[in-house]
């Protein structure tokens, strides 16, 4: 009997399609927090192209973007909106700073929520974020 080929769940296919059409930055991870997609708008904020970031595990992108609060204190990955969405399976929203890979510190506002195909089937999480209007330098 043939082994079935790998394929993303339809919910993730649709989420990626939705994200790819938005001018707002969107970051999509699977249920383990591994990056499965971010759109062009997110590429500009993160300073990294998706093709360079696909497949990054949570620890890796957490270290890369080094989220911190307004006082410069590091934010544990599990306390970021995406971390909350994945580990606690609930939506979250907050302001945070990230270290973009183009060397710029950016203050962003992020909302994340888990993606449930069924009540007991979480497939991952999606974060929508944007630079805050003041775009302040720390």
């Amino acid at each position, binding site marked *: *009997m*043939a082994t*079935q*080929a*790998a*394929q*993303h*769940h*339809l*919910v993730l*296919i*649709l989420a*990626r*399609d939705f994200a*790819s*059409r938005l001018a707002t930055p969107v970051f999509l991870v699977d249920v383990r927090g591994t990056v499965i997609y971010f759109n062009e708008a997110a590429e500009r904020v993160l300073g990294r192209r998706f093709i360079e970031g696909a497949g990054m595990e949570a620890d890796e992108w957490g270290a890369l973007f080094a989220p911190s609060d307004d006082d410069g204190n590091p934010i544990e990955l599990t306390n970021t909106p995406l971390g909350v969405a994945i580990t606690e399976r609930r939506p979250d929203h907050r302001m945070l700073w990230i270290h973009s890979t183009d060397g710029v510190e950016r203050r962003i506002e992020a909302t994340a929520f888990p993606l449930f*195909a*069924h*009540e007991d*089937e979480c497939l991952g999480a999606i974060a929508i974020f944007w630079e805050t209007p003041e775009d302040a330098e720390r």
Partner: protein
Amino acid sequence: MHVRIWGCRGSIAAPGPETIRYGGNTSCVEVRGDDGEVIVLDAGTGARPLGERLMSEHEPALRVDLLLTHLHVDHLEGLGMFAPIWAPETELHIWGPPSPVASLDERIATYFSPPLFPVHLTEVPARVSFHDAPREPWTIGSITVSAHPILHPGATVGYRLESEDRTLAYVTDHEPALGTDLDAVDTSWISGYALAHHADLLIHDCQYTVEEYASHVGWGHPSVAHVAAFARRAEVGRLVMFHHHPGHSDDQLDAMRGDVLSGWSVDPARCIVAAEGAEIEV
């Protein structure tokens, strides 16, 4: 596995002289397993003649597994005229896409109850069981069945049936190219790909010409070009063009087969236009 097509028309039955070669009944496919399993794929109007055939062959008990891809009427309207459902000795298992909104039997009963149908689903004589299609493969006799959600408005699944080393994929009412370039995207991002990958026989929706699709984007069906690309990417053995548009004549379907083959350069014998009564060994 042995396949017989009882209905291959999409959207609404379309009998008449223009459709006499390929048929006018809506979706219904019979699959017989190597151990005599009776699996029915969808219950369009083709389910009526299939039911009569089954009742004439099986006395007295009959187990039927009906796999519904979704609950649009053209895939369900034959259930009330499916003779085994009116026989108390029938054991009918109905499988369908799960929904967070209502159970499968509640959703089917929306159609199978007054005023749309004279009898309520709970009143039929057959012993009917309802099952949400599991997320993991399950077995029906000697056949392993997988169901995955596919791109079509509302909860819809496609099915993959495996027996020994043979695979049948039934992926109808499917718009895999919505928002996607099927030739460019990684296959893991193609709806229905895992169902169809390396299938010996793929039965796939083939509703629109390229020109028609342009004004039907998002309606849940592909163009001939999409079907060709999907078959090519999934590397299927044979393709059965299915779910014919009710307005397409037999001659138009022949022309659409040529269009599919122009995008899927294979031995023409590998591309088949579904026809009522056609029997195919998988």
